[in-house]
């Protein structure tokens, strides 16, 4: 909000306060309360549209939506709730940083909240998508500023976030430079032309040539 508008609002509030002081109404905060009460609500698109857009069947969408709506009755997840939920799965460590990156990856329209469409679209890619799509999604996750290149700093952030989820009590003990070393290994593998960044093509190429990665992409097919 612009400065002028803010100043005007503050002045109005002060005048109201003086008025109330003199006339002595007891319900001083009623006006402000009303502004905050109208909660955000979101209704998803119809079932047919979602069926067309994603690779889930009708029944699966129904189950997904029920779970989603149960947890978030207002229909959207904001980042704090998302971090909360994700942290529940990793009690020993701090999953908030990684959850932040994950949230950005799911929030494709970047409006600050994950609606059911975002949720289901992301899941559709992860669970029912082709290998290409999945790798694309992973690249998108790593590319924090979405500029098409993964730099070492971005990768380091991601790596630190992942290692943070492990927490303190690990074996062997987590050392300060472990994430950095891991990033080095990653870049050695992925960065073909050694220009210090990883592009999408390098990434997909490299992953497709790696047995382990290919196999692990198929791991979570049957989650729903």
């Amino acid at each position, binding site marked *: 909000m612009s400065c002028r508008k803010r100043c005007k609002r503050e002045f109005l509030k002060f005048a109201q306060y003086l008025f109330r002081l003199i006339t002595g109404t007891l319900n001083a905060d009623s006006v402000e309360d009303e502004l905050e009460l109208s909660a955000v609500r979101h209704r998803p698109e119809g079932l047919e549209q979602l069926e067309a857009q994603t690779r889930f069947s009708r029944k699966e969408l129904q189950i997904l939506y029920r*779970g989603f709506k149960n947890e978030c009755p207002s229909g959207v997840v904001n980042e704090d709730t998302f971090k909360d939920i994700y942290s*529940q799965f990793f009690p020993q460590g701090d999953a908030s940083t990684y959850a932040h990156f994950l949230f950005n990856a799911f929030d494709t329209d970047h409006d600050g909240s994950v609606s059911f469409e975002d*949720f289901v679209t992301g899941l559709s890619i*992860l669970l029912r998508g082709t290998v290409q799509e999945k790798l694309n999604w992973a690249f998108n996750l790593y590319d924090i500023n979405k500029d098409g290149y993964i730099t070492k700093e971005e990768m380091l952030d991601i790596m630190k976030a992942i290692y943070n989820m492990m927490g303190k009590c690990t074996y062997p003990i987590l050392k300060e430079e472990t994430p950095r070393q891991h990033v080095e290994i990653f870049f050695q593998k992925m960065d073909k032309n050694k220009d210090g960044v990883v592009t999408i093509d390098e990434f997909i190429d490299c992953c497709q040539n790696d047995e382990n990665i290919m196999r692990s992409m198929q791991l979570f097919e049957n989650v729903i």
Partner: protein
Amino acid sequence: MAAGVAAWLPFARAAAIGWMPVASAPMPPPPRDKRHTRDELIILNVSGSRFQTWRNTLERYPDTLLGSTERDFFYHEETNEYFFDRDPDIFRHILNFYRTGKLHYPRHECISAYDEELAFFGIIPEIIGDCCYEEYKDRRRENAERIQDDEDNENGNDVTQLDLTIRQSMWRAFENPHTSTMALVFYYVTGFFIAVSVMANVVETVPCGTGSRAKEMSCGERYALAFFCLDTACVMIFTVEYLLRLIAAPSRYKFVKSVMSIIDVVAIMPYYIGLVMTDNEDVSGAFVTLRVFRVFRIFKFSRHSAGLRILGYTLKSCASELGFLLFSLTMAIIIFATVMFYAEKGSNSSKFTSIPAAFWYTIVTMTTLGYGDMVPKTIVGKVFGSICSLSGVLVIALPVPVIVSNFSRIYHQSQRAEKRRAQKKTRLARIRAAKSGGANAYLQYKRNGLLADAEEEASKEAGKALVCKVNPTFETQHHHLLHCLEKTTNHEFVDEQTYETSCMEVSMVKPSTSRSSSVSSSPHGLTSCCSRRNKRKSFNVPNSNMTAGRRGSVQELSTIQIRERPLSNSRSSLNAKFEETVPLNSEQQPYITAAIISMPTPPVTTPEGGDSASSPDFLQSNIVRVSAL
């Protein structure tokens, strides 16, 4: 982990794909999904109200009844649903817990009913949501207090005379004066003397007309001897009481520390100190001050008055409010006194000579007393004086309702406890009457059907046939059970009047010999005791088994009344005096009974008494009856 979050697990697993490209080691194989069943609706029929939910919802909490296999016990095949015979209103909250993950406590429900339902469904109350937890805890505490109260009372009343030592009974007499007449007398006597002592202290100072000198004398000086004797008497009584309490106290150290004992000591100390110090003139000034402490005797009344105790307890529990009141008052007094002093400094002949002097004015004004001995004269002083009096009203009025509400709550609580105690007696009496109705049903059943002429089995059949029209299955089975008990112990149940009449009659001809071990083969007309049979082994029945009929019949315990003759018409009973012929069919009184200490087991075979009737009825006849109420 909150079970609601379990719904997000598939998502978290899917998002794990983000780790794959950077993984340093190959991933473990995923777990096999053993049963990939579709989610289905489960119908829960709770006393007719049908609730439906997904199975996954219930299985979020696998350590509760509904979430585990325990619910299979309640599965009803015909209707393909789970049936629970519980309260549907409370079940609603329990099901909501599965749905939302939060357990709420409805305010209008009874706390014990709610707790029972929670226990039944295997849900721990600690997960009640914050919104309802406080209310739940409060209600639970109240309930626990009430139960504790009742238990204390019961324990207090149940202890019988025989169990206490002298010391314990003395202490009990002191603490609960209504337990015995002696205690009551003592209680009233001490109360009277407290009153007398306090009145004497008061009257002592009243001017009593001129004495030998032409000077007004107080009554105390005029009738010094009389007052001294009165004082001595009171102090002696108080001393004796204190010493007795000290001796009787279960924990002397705790007693000495208690408030009441300190009051006792302070009440009688001045007298003794006065005795010691009468000669010393220079300390007589201090002695006079000491007499002030005699007024503490009035606090001894708090033992006699529950209201006083409640007041004291309230003040103790409101200590923080009182402290706050005092503190805020002090602050206001200092502020206003300073202001008034400086405001009135200008005017001459002002009474406000210093700030402490202004304290008096401030206190008098704030408490709206307004003596008028100090008044401000300047205009500024008057303005601030009025502000002072207005604020005084506010400052005092604010903490007072807190104290008042506290007092009211504690007072009503004690009132309720008293009322409950009073009602309890009537309630118990009514319950006992209802219960004895049930016992009488059995006796009625016996008379109707059981004591029949025919074989025992047949008689039972007949009895059952007679009564099964009237009684439901439960009753017949219950009667059968009681009958089995009779057979086991070889005693029979009778009703109250019969027992009491038998007791009275027995007491009239109470034999000096009594034990069952005495063997006498000849039928003894009047002995109510004894096993007349020689070969019987004595059957020692401890007192506790004969609980029912023991009312007031402690002395009858040693008397035994045995019917050695069969019940048949041709009965030649031993104790013709006591005989009440029980006809073979029906409606007459069953045997007289008496509680016994030991009795012989009647033989299963025919008795030696050589009585004719060897009918199976005889089996019953040899039984020594015991009243069973």
